[in-house]
């Protein structure tokens, strides 16, 4: 099933024989860093330090990576508690793969976001009780008004509008336009074809425009 393909891709990546940090940093070489030193390192290097036993690297990575993952999961799931669970689970998988992480390959942040997307879409499937792609969503209903919009805060307005979208449209739009994933990647994550992704994205954008209609002045878009 395509939905599993992305997950399997990640799984396969986890099991690759790696040129790991173990090769360049022996396990018993526990390096302690000062805070400014650790903050100047790349995510890759920090993950290597973490794998080598440096406890301070974990905090820097959490502060650097987790907020974006939490925001993504919240946008997809529209449930803060579930989003925190997904963030914690995705990070746990990163910690587990750290000793086998290939330096110079994929960025930990990119990998982490893909894992979070898979975990979130799995939860959405379970929430629906059936396959994510097996239920037709109703055609675009009349747009609901975006209530309690905070003036001069476009991102909040966008988040509110996204929350009002039907679930699959929201996921497709978030992954395409906020995460920058390709349509085949989104199709794999959602278990649908590329054409369905394009349709969902187009409908989602159309509805977003309707939801935000008449708000351009409020959002600072002058005529």
């Amino acid at each position, binding site marked *: 099933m395509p939905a599993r393909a992305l997950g399997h891709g990640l799984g396969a990546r986890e099991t690759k024989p790696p040129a790991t940090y173990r090769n360049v940093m022996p396990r018993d070489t526990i390096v302690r860093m000062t805070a400014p030193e650790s903050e100047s390192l790349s995510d890759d290097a920090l993950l290597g330090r973490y794998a080598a036993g440096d406890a301070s690297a974990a905090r820097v990575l959490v502060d650097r990576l987790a907020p974006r993952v939490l925001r993504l999961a919240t946008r997809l799931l529209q449930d803060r508690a579930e989003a925190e669970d997904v963030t914690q689970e995705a990070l746990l998988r990163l910690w587990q793969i750290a000793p086998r992480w290939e330096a110079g390959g994929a960025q930990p942040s990119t990998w982490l976001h893909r894992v979070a997307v898979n975990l979130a879409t799995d939860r959405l499937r379970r929430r629906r009780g059936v396959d994510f792609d097996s239920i037709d969503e109703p055609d675009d209903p009349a747009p609901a008004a975006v209530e309690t919009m905070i003036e001069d805060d476009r*991102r909040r307005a966008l988040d509110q509008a996204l929350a009002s979208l039907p679930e699959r449209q929201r996921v497709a739009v978030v992954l395409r336009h906020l995460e920058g994933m390709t349509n085949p990647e989104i199709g794999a994550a959602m278990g649908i074809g590329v054409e369905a992704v394009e349709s969902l994205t187009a409908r989602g954008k159309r509805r977003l425009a309707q939801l935000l209609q008449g708000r*351009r002045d409020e959002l600072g878009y002058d005529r």
Partner: protein
Amino acid sequence: MTTDRRTDEAGGFDESLLDALFAEARDEVPAPLPQAFEARLVAAARAAQPGAAAPRPGWLARVRAMLADVGGAPSLAGMGVAGLAGVWIGFAAPGSTSDLVTTFWQGAASVSPSVSDWAAPASDEALALGDLLTLIGDDTQ
């Protein structure tokens, strides 16, 4: 900001305006984590850290583990009773085994501890068995 090209006649958002919103949202720095959630994530990270030394168990845990090796608390009670019995026997210094047995079983006073007394009837039985074999031998001849 001139956005006429990005808005439609109805005053809504056209695609380019939405794309601008998406771009802003992508670039926006996310809010920092709530402190409690951050602490939870860091604790989970350290728990999963390779080579993280397991915390040394306290003395009570070590005693419990030692007890578990010999069967747990019930076995400690058994060992205690046996030890106390040993101490009591040491201090009381009972004179002979027969006195000690008599203390617990009054009927033991009538039992002779002498081996010869026990062996005598056995020799009688052995004699009777010899006679019986002789008789059987006579019959078969």
